[in-house]
């Protein structure tokens, strides 16, 4: 029974000195591109490798981007039978909008407060994979519950590894985590803690939470706020990146006939902004055209990731950032289009904001990037002073048709 991941460090890749690095590069260059040993990470990144007892695993690169924080790249998933497949070209934060209710507009924390590398991360009870003066990666194996369970037969539990990093973001503490599960699921998440930075003297915009400290405070009410976390997801299934296709699914009730739900499937052909549609169960899928069946229609095998917007429940709106009312944006990958706002302050040669990245480029034969937002509220209580109780948000990229059937059921079926 695979309960915990067998965690192997790849610290030899961490910060090699110049000459060994050259030797290593030569070695990497000469090695055929199979498995983790040959995984090439750019100079700013470090390789990681995760091997589960079932034979499944992950390989990839991580870095702490000075603006965006913990970012994964070249992420490969290995099935239990040992086949490795490219899954994600890159996964990181695209922006964090913080909008205090008392203000008429939001600020983008990554580019305005920046420096996701400040502060000293702590990894209580976890394995530190790599560390230098500025960056610490926590990697924690965990049990993700049942993967398979049927009648009174054997049980297959799902193992996972969480890669995480924490930093100061203004007065907040901001932790970014990626949970990589044994079945190929990826769960990006962020946790907000630290201390509340803004107060107000208007009780309509804040809560009286200071207790005894209220007398010391200039403004007694802790400001309520909305936090929109946007993730930049460059799904790239297979080794060819420019053949991934993005689709939208709706399941529309047919009121004339017993509330049947008719599935409709739409290929997104042009860069676009989309909203969730909870009553139509809207969801999105990215699949690789080469690995998938060439036939059309809902029954065709589609090797890709399903992005189910379950955790996006609140709809943020801003008078100044029109695109923030959308939940999913799709753009053609452009390395210098990284942050949803103030992008030019980091990448002067590109457009400044996400709505400018979306400029009618066709998605066919291009590498698509998904930008997905999750909206959460900060409505402080007495328990959030002096330290904000952690607020977590997370979503899942669910593997879709990666194998002909469950690759784990041999562990359960007789």
């Amino acid at each position, binding site marked *: 029974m695979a309960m915990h991941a067998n965690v192997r460090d790849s610290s030899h890749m961490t910060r090699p000195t110049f000459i060994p690095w050259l030797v290593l590069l030569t070695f990497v260059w000469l090695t055929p591109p199979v498995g983790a040993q040959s995984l090439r990470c750019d100079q700013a990144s470090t390789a990681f490798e995760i091997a589960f007892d079932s034979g499944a695993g992950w390989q990839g690169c991580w870095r702490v981007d000075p603006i965006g924080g913990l970012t994964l790249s070249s992420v490969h998933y290995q099935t239990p039978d040992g086949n490795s497949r490219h899954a994600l070209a890159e996964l990181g934060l695209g922006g964090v909008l913080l909008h205090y209710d008392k203000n*008429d507009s939001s600020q983008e924390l990554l580019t305005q407060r920046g420096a996701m590398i400040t*502060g000293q991360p702590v990894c*209580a009870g976890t394995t530190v994979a790599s560390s230098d003066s500025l960056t610490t990666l926590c990697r924690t194996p965990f049990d993700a519950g049942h993967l398979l369970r049927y009648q009174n037969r054997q049980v297959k539990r799902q193992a996972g590894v969480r890669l995480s990093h*924490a930093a100061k973001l203004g007065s907040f503490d901001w932790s970014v985590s990626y949970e990589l599960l044994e079945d190929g699921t990826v769960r990006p998440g962020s946790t907000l803690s630290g201390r509340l930075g803004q107060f107000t003297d208007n009780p309509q915009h804040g809560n009286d939470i200071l207790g005894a*400290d209220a007398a010391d405070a200039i403004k007694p009410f802790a400001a309520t706020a909305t936090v929109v976390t946007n993730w930049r997801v460059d799904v790239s299934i297979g080794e060819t990146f420019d053949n991934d296709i993005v689709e939208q699914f709706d399941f529309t009730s047919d009121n004339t006939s017993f509330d049947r739900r*008719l599935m409709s499937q739409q290929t997104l052909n042009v860069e676009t902004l989309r909203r969730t549609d909870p009553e139509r169960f809207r969801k999105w899928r990215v699949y690789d055209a080469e690995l998938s069946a060439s036939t059309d229609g809902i029954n065709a095998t589609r090797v890709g990731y399903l992005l189910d917007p379950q955790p996006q429940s609140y709809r943020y709106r801003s008078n100044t950032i029109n695109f923030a009312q959308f939940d999913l944006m799709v753009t053609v990958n452009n390395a210098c289009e990284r942050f949803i706002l103030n992008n030019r302050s980091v990448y002067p040669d590109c457009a400044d904001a996400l709505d400018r990245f979306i400029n009618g480029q066709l998605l066919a034969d291009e590498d698509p990037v998904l930008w997905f937002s999750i909206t959460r509220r900060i409505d402080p209580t007495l*328990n959030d002073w002096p330290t904000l109780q952690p607020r977590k948000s997370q979503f899942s990229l669910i593997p879709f048709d990666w194998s002909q059937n469950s690759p784990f059921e041999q562990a359960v079926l007789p």
Partner: protein
Amino acid sequence: MSCTPTQTGINLTRLFAFVLWFSVLGAIQPAAAQSNVQIPEQAPEQAPAPLNDLGSQVPADSGAECGALKTVTQEFDNGARWSMCLDSNERENIVLSNVFYTPPDAQPLRVFGSLRLSQLHVVYDDSNVTFHDVTQFGLGGAFRVTLNEDDCPGGTLLNLNGEAAACTLLNKAANTAVTTQSAPGADSLSLFSISQVGSYAYTVRWQFYDNGALEPSISAAGALQRNTTDTRSLFGRVLEGVTDKSWLSHTHNYYWRLDFDLGDSGTDDAVYRIDWPLQPDGTRIKTRTRLTTETSDAVQPDEFRAWDIMDTDAPNSIGYRIEPLHYGHRLVQADKAPYTEFDFFVTTHNDCERFASQNTRFNPECDDSVLDYANGESLDNADLVAWHRISFHHLPRNEDRELMHSHHDSFLIQPRNILPVSGASAAPNNLAPVITLNHHQSATVGTAVNITSVAQDADQDTLTITADSLPDGLTLTERGGITGTPTGTGQFTTVLTVSDNFATDELTIEWRVIGASQSGVIPPLTLPFLLLMLWRRGRLRVRHAN
């Protein structure tokens, strides 16, 4: 795949009813409803199991008193404790009653009279087939799976009637990276039981956190239940390896019944609807409406709607918040099941209002659905029951066959004002902001000034910065700097104040703004004048002579 009979008693009447039911469906929907549904063997119909609500008779400072029921207690490293009574019945399976949370260094707080899953719908996309699993089948009795060690690694199996019926697992804090200033992640106790209903294996789980939060959740594993032979249907997908079947998409629609009994009295709780409507100027204003009568309420994503159940109506009363944060999917069948138009209900406690739907099957003396229970009775001095639902739409993928990869849904019941506030004032821990700008500043008319930051705060608190009488043309920036281009010369005195809400730093800055000529560049008209003066004094000539 076959269903292994785990129960000897088969109710033929019930079985016949199901066969009849499916025949009728078949007649209505000949094309779509070629169902392979496996009819679970039924335990003989029984009277509903007695409820475990103990009302408010148990003294609040005692923690759970369970009588004949099993007691579950967990102490955490932070000193907090949860305790409750565990029972299992035929329909809902796990019923937790008399649920107490003891914050660190504080008295036990009664939170819930009882907790249970009160309905579980599976609604198939192909037609109007809706399973009400809790009332049509049940999660307890013969549907409850006997747990084995693999179900409960490192945990404790709990026996009921000599069978391993439930498992408790202690989960250490999520072990995510934190900074030194973060609140620690919360440890938690999860208590769960597994039920096999048809092809599905449901894990119904209650996760109790050491900070007082509770996360009810449900996972579905097992196998896909229904398919159709119409492989061109838009109601499902043909999965690899079985070309003659389309596996139907479907929605799981879950209802929880949460009998809140906060504090010493279970009849003084107050329920509020919280909205933050967007104002034309881009700000938001909180509106907090006390619900005074039984209410059915729907999510309002644009207004960030949430619901509070508070011990009393006093400001900063202890209580809990239910935020609908799992609403990317929302099942609505307005005609067929009007209760699906709502997501949160508050009703007065009534033992015979037990299931969110099909209640009259077991409680003919009461109404049939939660929508009917919420019929406007006053909530004044009443024992309140909150009902919350979430739904999940499942589109089959290859990974769901033969055995289905588990899908998981949960929501959070978050504590408000429950942890003891530390007695000592927290503000002295505050590090005061410091103005870093030099108190003598000079600038030149026409030359841009760009001071990126005037102050620092070691806590990185948000600073409020004010400056009176800056030289004309200069302004404070949003990020706490000073920019602009001075327009006039002179001496200026600016009082700069910086506040982090608890401490203030103040500095008087003397500005000397000089004209462009004073800085060494000779304006064109002054040069002839200067030359003339020098010539008249003879100095220029002297220099010439040399």
